[in-house]
């Protein structure tokens, strides 16, 4: 028997957990337009993230970038639903590859994986975000995981938060390495979708609201399995992959 890649296992597991909560799995292009990657997400034209430093632009193709996050699919998904005449509520996860024009080292890669989550409806609140993430991490770690928020900022959410999780100490080594248990760990950014984004996607922000979150899957994998170096993920090395 061969092995699937640990990231694939994590995506499979995330899909199983979110499926139970009524989430669909969506995807979007890796080569994305600037509009979906930035403008629709309320990132202004002169924002530093749009400099060549952090984002991959394509030669002779102005207006195209390698997507820097999975967030563009929030807008694509909503648009596609509206096109099919389907109004909210929507619940969707978007696992996929993203790109940053960064130097590579033990904790940084130019290409890595994220998982996006989006829930939109008439009555979706920040409290629902907390509840959903608590459920997700509790299922992932098979125990009662606590969630807390800290203030943060992303152009596409308001309020914007960082999400920390804490795995109880008594869950044992099989669930998570000892050094991770009983401590608050930063897991992802999240927040209430900015009304500009709701509007860009074609919905009325006075009627609909929702939450979104984006987590680095490589980081979740590294924490869970004590993987010391992110570069293993794209190494195609079976000494790594066959352990999973």
């Amino acid at each position, binding site marked *: *028997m*061969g092995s*699937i890649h*640990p990231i*694939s*296992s994590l995506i*499979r*597991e995330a*899909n199983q957990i979110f499926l*139970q909560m*009524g989430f*669909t*799995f*969506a*995807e979007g*292009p*890796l080569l994305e337009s600037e509009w979906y990657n930035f403008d629709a997400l309320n990132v202004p034209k*002169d924002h*530093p993230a749009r400099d060549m*430093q952090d984002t*991959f*632009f*394509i*030669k002779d193709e102005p207006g195209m970038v*390698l997507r820097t996050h999975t967030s563009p699919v929030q807008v694509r998904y909503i648009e596609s639903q509206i096109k099919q005449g389907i109004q909210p509520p929507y*619940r969707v996860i978007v696992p996929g*590859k993203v*790109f940053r*024009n960064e*130097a*590579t080292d033990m904790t940084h890669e*130019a290409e890595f994986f994220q998982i996006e989550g989006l829930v939109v409806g008439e009555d*979706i*609140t*920040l*409290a*629902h975000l*907390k*509840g959903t993430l*608590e459920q997700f991490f509790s299922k992932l770690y098979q125990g009662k995981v606590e969630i*807390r*928020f*800290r*203030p943060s*900022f992303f152009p596409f959410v308001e*309020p914007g938060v960082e999400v920390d999780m804490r795995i109880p100490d008594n869950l044992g080594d099989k669930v998570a390495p000892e050094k991770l248990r009983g401590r608050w760990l930063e897991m992802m950014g999240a927040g*209430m979708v*900015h009304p500009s984004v709701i509007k860009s996607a074609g919905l009325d922000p006075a009627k609909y*609201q929702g939450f979104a979150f984006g987590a680095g899957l490589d980081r979740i994998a590294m924490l869970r*399995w004590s993987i*010391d170096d992110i570069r293993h*993920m*794209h190494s*195609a*090395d*079976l*000494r*790594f*992959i066959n*352990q999973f």
Partner: protein
Amino acid sequence: MKISKQWLDTFFASPLPPAQELADALTFHAFEIDGIEKLSHPMTEFGDEVLDVKVTPNRGHDALSHRGIAKELSAILKLLLANDPFVLRPLLAPVTTDVSVELDSKLCKRYIAGYIKGVKVGPSPEWLKQRLEAVGQRSINNVVDATNFVMFNMGQPLHAFDAGKLGSLNIGVRAAKDGEVMVALDKKEYTLNSSMLVVTVADAPVGIAGVKGGMPAAIDETTKDIVIESANFDGVSVRKTAQALKLRTDASARFEQVLSPEVAAHGMQSVAALIQELAGGELRGFVDVYPEPQKPMYASVTVEKVNKVLGTTLTGADIADAFSRLGFVYKEEAGVFEVQAPFERLDITIPEDLIEEVARITGYDKIPSTPLDEARGTPLVNPNFYAAEKAREELVAKGYSEIYTSVFAEAGERMVLNKVDSVRPYLRDSLLPGLAEALAKNKDNKDLLGLKEVKLFEIGTVWPASPKTSSRGGKGGKELVMLGTVSEKEEASEKILEPVDATSYEILPLSNATRFEPFSKYPYIVRDVAFWVPKTTELTTELITELIKKEAGELAHKVMLFDRFEKAGKQSLAYRVIFQSFDRTLTEVEVNQSMAKLSRILVDKGFEIR
């Protein structure tokens, strides 16, 4: 930004709690803290503590200063801000006609010049040196230090020119001319272009607006008369200029964030008073050119909306409390709050901005944890993901392992610009080269992996070459998701991963690994040992394997039974032992010794080595 605890204390009637408490307060209600440094001073009994505050990009306009952070702490800890420099309306008087200011660009929203004659430039007093050193600044002289102090105190970048060296007091702000050159205070020559803003005197550049002042008008011990600049320059322009000239300064970092032009007046008021206090001189007066004063900004939100977004049950009183603590002026009527944001809070525009203020000041721990309603019906199966998972299951059953390789290739039709490492700048048009490369690499480790054959697959995105007859503009065809496979017996091949419709997902197994075991980067040495085991032996194969693992020694990384058969009442077992070290390349001699020892033990057990 470095924030000194002692400096923060100056805004309050009594000293603040210790830095760790301040750090927690900010972390949970405003900004992340990157660390706390303890400083000891010969002058004070208790020393100082410096917090490294990570001000988020949406708050650069008000929080990149001690006053800004003090204001936050005042709201969070419910402590009255006793000395707020923004409270009194600045009185920039008298007006002087000695200096003229001409604004020739929309990129400058305000320019205030302050003219002081007869100053005595010298060293700064101890308290000022301490303040600046705490935040990592060197003391230069009393006048320059005063401008830096006020910038770190209230966030307004300031500059002082030696009026005597300027030769004229006709100040201008205009676009630079292409090729115009200026030697800055760092003694380097900068070549400017028309996208950059300059401050001029008699039309000659004396400063790169918002970035750095010019050398010719530098303040030194001979300076007698000074002109202070407190202005507001367009953030985008300053950022692009600083980037193009590779010259990021504390001033440019603040202008980049877009400041309120109102702050310029407070800055000027404060620095003029401070300079006179430290260096004496006679204040001749000010010139303030402010063509379009900032209008008051209003935002409104209802109690209902606050709770609707947060999922809370806050009352009007709770919300009012948050606004009061923040110093927001508000009117409330029938559950509707109309708020006038302080002039420095350029981020308060829509109801959601107010909701965020309420949430963070109240505390995110007050947000309940509410599960989503039970899902209505089962979500649709994603046909692409379903197809990928199906392919994974089929291939894994046949012994293939899944890899992910980089989308970046050495050749291809599409290229990314400015790749940091400049290696492989093309977007791949096929999975095949990556698969072939991975096969070759993994073949070397077959023994270590205990594999008879290396079999790999990848599900990944490619950007195929455009058809030669493509009539489209742009390069390359649409991106495709491919399924590629390779093995030692078969050449790498790939095909488009076609979607598969299904009504439900299969329940597929997850990895049951508990922990990744790091592997050595040093080469390994393989040794085989085969022997006859008499049928009469009491030891099971499992016990024999355990025995070999134990007796092969520390250097044995892996032991595998790879062959067994029976003949004439005896069993033959063949083991492969992989020797490898984590910190060095092993020698044949060491391995031979280990194997010799192992062989002796096996013989002692009555096994006949083949």
